[in-house]
Each structure stands twice: as structure tokens, then as C-alpha cells.
């Protein structure tokens, strides 16, 4: 088999796993948009905030210690204990649920029936607020995140592909795990929305707010539920991306990776987020593989948007999005 074909196959495989990482971020956007029509600009910052909180719990860091020290002249930093990961993750989930309650109580409740653009602007404000709170609460330094997920080259994939093709493919074990976790997450979300009372209520609200309200579904509860689930998805994305390159401000910028995925897959489709992620992942890796020698690399950021733009021209609602028809 020619080397170029082998290398292209390796790039495709890596594109698929990278695509799953993008899809993890896109899922949070889809959940909130589907249930409330809000494009949540803060989703990336929620991933950062969740990851910061998790590391803070794991390392026993005292929240707001810098602020407390500055105000009272103390030297507080750590509680003096480390929280096991299995406890720290549920504790972080609770914080994300609390955040969802606060978002509903202090922002969404006051913006019922407002235009989508107003709600979008509110999430921009929320993003900057959360970013600042995260900084003050846990500090701006880079933090290592280790929840015990394996990292590095998969020896099994290397051995198998070497036996088949005489060239061992590289694939990061963390990304294989991410693919598995994303599959579980999608399965859990599907089961929740199809087979639970709350899930059905959520779908009802997504279909028609007014009709859902008329049958006694609490819009406020559904919003808290949706934002809580999006917070948990943000935590998963934060763990995966934070394990790759540490927890720091740039983690919030992974949201930029989700936008082309959403344009491609549609803002209202969970399978769309996954398929969109895979198409973007494979597309950018193959484009980089073939074009980098000619145009010098660094193509990943803009190529994803260009691909999304081409899709947008032919299918504005995305691959799986609902077609927008407004009657006059």
C-alpha cells in the first residue's frame, strides 16, 4: 500500500477521534438551544469553570482564597487534603446544578418572552462573568488535570495496524476514551429524553413552549434541568480537553471549535452534533495532510469554518437541523 494512502488513513482515524472531542463541546450548545432556543455563548466558559472547579476540589484548594487573603491579610491556600476523583466529580456536578439554578433565578426568569438575540446577549454577559468568577475563585495559573484517564499512544492500535500495513498508526488513548464516553453520553441523553417523565417534558418544551405550559409543565424547572445537563456535558468536555493540555483560560476557546460543528450538524440535533464533529474532524485533518506541504500548515482553524460555510450555502439548517419555514 502506498505511504500516502497509509498516512491519509492515519489522518482520517485521528480526525474521527478529534471530531468526537469537538462534538462533546457542541452537545452542550445543542441541548440548550433545543430546549430553549438560546444560543449559549457561555458553553465554552462553562467547560472551563467546571474543569477549574474539579481541579480545585481534587487539590483541596480553598475557593476565593486569593480574594480572602487580599482582604484579610491571611495566607490561606489549601484545606490540607485532596479529594478523591470519584468524590470530586459528583461535587462538581452539584456545583454545575447550582450554577444552573442561579442562571435561571437571576437571568432567564427575567428574560421570559424576550427576543432570542436578547437571550444570546445575556449569555455573552454570563460568559464574561463566569470567566472572572472562575479566575477569582480558583486562580489563573495553569492546572494539571488527572482523573486517571490513560494518555499517550495506543500500543494496541499501533501493533494491529503495523501487522496489517507494515506501518503503525498513531492514536491517542485519551481520544479513544473520549469516543467511548461520548457514545455513553449520547446513549444516556437519548434514554433520558425518550423514557423519563422529565425527558418527555423537556421534549415537549422544545417542540412548543406554549403547549407545554398549557399542560402544566414548569418552564422554569425545564430550564434548570436543561442548563444542569449542559453543565454536566461541559464538565465532560472540560475533563477531556483539560486532560490534554491542562486547565487554563484557553479551555473556554474550545467553544470556537464547536461552532462549525453546529453549523454542519444543525443546532437542534444530538446525532447532528456527533456527525458534524466527525465531518469537521476528518475534513480538517485530511485537508491539513494534503495541503500543508503546499500552503505551510496552520489550516485547522479556518478550514473548519470554510467547510461549514459551504454546507451553509446548500443546507442552512445543517445536516440534521429542523427546516425553518415561516409563513407570512
Amino acid at each position: 500500500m502506498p505511504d500516502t494512502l497509509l498516512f491519509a488513513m492515519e489522518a482520517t482515524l485521528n480526525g474521527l477521534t478529534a471530531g468526537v472531542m469537538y462534538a462533546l463541546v457542541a452537545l452542550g450548545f445543542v441541548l440548550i438551544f433545543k430546549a430553549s432556543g438560546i444560543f449559549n455563548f457561555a458553553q465554552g466558559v462553562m467547560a472551563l469553570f467546571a474543569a477549574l472547579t474539579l481541579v480545585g476540589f481534587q487539590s483541596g484548594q480553598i475557593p476565593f482564597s486569593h480574594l480572602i487573603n487580599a482582604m484579610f491579610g491571611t495566607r490561606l491556600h489549601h484545606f490540607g487534603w485532596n479529594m478523591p476523583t470519584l468524590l470530586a466529580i459528583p461535587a462538581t456536578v452539584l456545583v454545575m446544578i447550582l450554577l444552573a439554578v442561579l442562571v435561571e433565578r437571576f437571568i432567564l426568569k427575567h428574560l421570559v418572552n424576550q427576543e432570542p438575540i436578547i437571550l444570546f446577549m445575556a449569555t455573552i454577559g454570563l460568559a464574561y462573568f463566569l470567566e472572572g468568577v472562575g479566575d477569582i475563585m480558583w486562580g489563573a495559573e495553569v492546572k494539571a488535570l488527572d482523573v486517571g484517564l490513560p494518555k499517550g499512544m495506543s500500543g494496541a492500535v499501533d501493533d494491529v495496524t503495523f501487522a496489517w500495513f507494515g506501518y503503525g498508526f498513531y492514536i491517542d488513548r485519551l481520544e479513544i476514551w473520549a469516543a467511548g464516553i461520548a457514545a455513553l453520553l449520547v446513549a444516556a441523553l437519548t434514554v433520558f429524553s425518550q423514557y423519563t417523565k422529565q425527558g418527555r417534558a423537556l421534549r415537549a418544551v422544545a417542540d412548543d413552549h406554549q403547549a407545554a405550559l398549557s399542560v402544566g409543565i414548569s418552564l422554569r424547572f425545564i430550564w434548570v434541568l436543561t442548563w444542569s445537563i449542559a453543565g454536566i456535558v461541559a464538565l465532560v468536555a472540560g475533563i477531556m480537553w483539560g486532560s490534554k493540555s491542562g486547565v487554563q483560560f484557553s479551555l473556554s476557546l474550545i467553544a470556537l471549535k464547536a461552532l462549525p460543528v453546529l453549523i454542519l450538524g444543525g443546532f437542534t440535533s444530538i446525532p447532528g452534533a456527533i456527525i458534524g464533529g466527525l465531518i469537521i474532524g476528518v475534513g480538517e485533518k485530511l485537508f491539513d495532510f494534503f495541503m500543508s506541504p503546499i500552503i505551510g500548515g496552520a489550516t485547522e482553524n479556518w478550514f473548519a469554518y470554510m467547510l461549514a460555510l459551504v454546507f451553509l450555502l446548500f443546507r442552512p439548517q445543517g445536516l440534521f437541523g429542523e427546516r425553518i419555514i415561516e409563513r407570512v
Partner: protein
Amino acid sequence: MKMTRLAATFAATMIATGPALAETLHFPSLSYRTGPFAAGGIPFADGYSDYLTLINERDGGIGGVPIRQTECETAYNTERGVECYQSIRGDNPLVLQPLSTGITYQLIPRTMEDGIPMHTMGYGRTSAVNGEVFNWTFNYPANYWDGASVIINYLLDENDGSLEGKKIALLYHNSAYGREPIPTLTRLSERHGYELLTIGVDSPGQEQGSQWLQIRRERPDYVVMWGWGVMNPTAIQEAANIRFPMENFIGVWWSGSQQDVRPVGAGAHGYKALAMHGTGMDYPIYEDMQRYVIDAGKYAGTGDEVGTVLYSRGMYAAMLAVEAAKKAQEIHGVAAITPAMMRDGMANLEITEELMAELGLPNFGPAFSVSCQNHGGSGAAMIQQWDANAGEWNLITDWIEPDRELIMEMAMEDSLAFAAENNMTPACLN
């Protein structure tokens, strides 16, 4: 009547505060404590501020005139950096430290026009080394091209003086900063016979899958990195993932701090980086720093960055600024110096080993002197290596000199082109 009284009070206040402001030495800091690069900006800003605080607390300022510090947040954003400049340019800033190559490029023509000196230590426009063109910009003790040349000289030492047939990959931040070493490495490849492979990474650099697949395919002997922010730990993690020999992976001085290696854990063991100064707290100055700044609770930020690589760099930048101010006072015979006098101090700065020892920083930085023609210092740097087990950087070489002849030749070409574009006649300022 009421307005007249108010105006009189205002005038009296201005008269009372005016001389007080004039009798301080204004050292602004264009810092970034927020944004994607905050993790690198915070320790630098803390080190810069703590050293100036130490000079105020211990020595009562410079030549008896207290230092006034101001800080303006740029978030490593060029537009915001320019806004910061506009807000402080009328407040007698003695020296600007933009800490960003993008901001530096924007400020070079402005500072030339306004007569404000700028110090871009280890970053910025490399050809500013030609002081006859860039009268107001200084980039001592080393610049990017020095750094690239020092790495090649180190690799020559490692390979018995020959890099013939070797392949070196440059993994660079796809920005003005990251592209700076390409001309030098290209010219040096022609001289030493190695193959140069350039691989760009888009900012911020969290996703480098394609780049490291390419490195795995191309199998370079060495990877040189020009990264910043999250690009650094991501690259080191990816290198560990593909089992690239870490001792053959060398970063520039902006890719060699604790923030870059700690998130990777044991995988970063053996990674190397340039060091333009020493690091750690094994220097006598830290006794004073502890006594006058830390224990007194007068430290900047949270006080937990003291002694780290980027804190040390900020402290070093402040030390060089203070020494230039002393030189300016000496030249002009006045304590309350102006930005123009500060420029003269910078252009005549001389750092000796004895002076470094006297300041409590023996062998912390290289000995060098600045002149009207050469604003770049010695260009020497050391190589440091990360020990993940001990959690510390260890210096593994002495000062390595760059190929200054080639660098000055390239700097002259670039700076004279700049002068021609701007209708300038290169000359020293009197």
C-alpha cells in the same frame, strides 16, 4: 461664587500634587492578567512589580526619587495594548515593556514619534538591534534571532560540530512572534546543511493533532518550538504521546516555564528550553525580596509565583530598567529623569558580572553593554532542562554565544529596509 471657589480648590490641589507627581519615576507595566495568555503574563507582571517595590522599600527609590508604578491590562491583545499606550503616553512613562511582539510592532513608530523608550527583552522586532534606525527601541540582552542561533550552536556542539544531513522541525505559533526565527533558521540551514521543516500552529494552539502526525511521519532529528500559552503544554504532551525523544525537543525562552511543563507531568521529563537568565530562588536578592516585599505583604498578585521562570524574567526586566535609570541619572546629573534621559541611560547601559553580583544576582544574566549602534546586548543564552521528578529546571550549559555576525547582517538588511520605507536616515541620537 461657588464655582470660583471650586476652581480655586482644584487649582490649589493641582499645584500641590503637580510637583509630587513630577518627582516620581513612572514605570508603567503593560500587563496581561486576563485572557488566554494570563498564565504567562501574571508571573512576569508580578516579578516586574516586586522588584520595583523592593527598590522603593529598601532604597527609597532610584537616586532618592520614588518609583511610581502603573499597570494597564492588555489581555495580550494588540488593540488594547495600543489603547494602553495612548492612556499613559502623556504621563512621562520612562520605559515601556509591552510583553507582546504584536503590540511592539504597533508601538515602534508611535514611540519614535513621542520620544518614549521601549524595552522588548527577548521578543519584539529583532532588527531593532540596530540602534541607528530604531533609536527608541531596545531588545537587550537577547532577541529571537539570537535564540534561534544559540539553539543551532548548541545542536552543533551536541553533534560534533556538524548538522549535515540532519532534519530540524520548527513548530511555531502562527503569528508575527512565531514566524520571527524562520529567516535565521533558514539562513543557518544553508550554512550548516540541515533540512528545515516549518510547521505552523494556529493560536491559541490547543489542537495540534495534525502537526504531530506530520512530525511523526517526517521523523525530524530535533524539534524546535516557538510557542506561547497553551500551545506549549499541548505540544509537550503531544511529543510525549508520540514518544518523541524529549531531549531532542528544545523550546525558545517563551516555551520554557513551569506553566509549560507541569500540566504534562512525568511526560515532560527531559524537555529543554533556552534560558536568557537564571531561575529559582538561590540568589542573595531573595533575602531582601522576602524581607521588604513578601513578608511585608507588599507583593504583587498572589505572591505564589516568586522564583518561577517568568517571575524571574519580569524581575530581570525591572532590574535592567532600574540600572538604565541609574545610568541616566549619572549621565545627566539629575534624579528626576525624563523619558529622553532614560533612553540615554539605556543606550549606555553596561552590565558586568560584578554589578550582577552586587545586585544579589550573580551569574543570573550575561554581562553585556549597549551602545547607540547595538541595542541588542550579547545575545547569549543557556540551555535548561526540565526534571519532572524534582519539579525544577536545571541549567545544563554555560552561556552560549549566537552567530552575531550573521544576525547583525540580517538585522542591518531588515532595519535599513524599514528606514528606507519610512524615509529615515539612520543615525545616532545626540
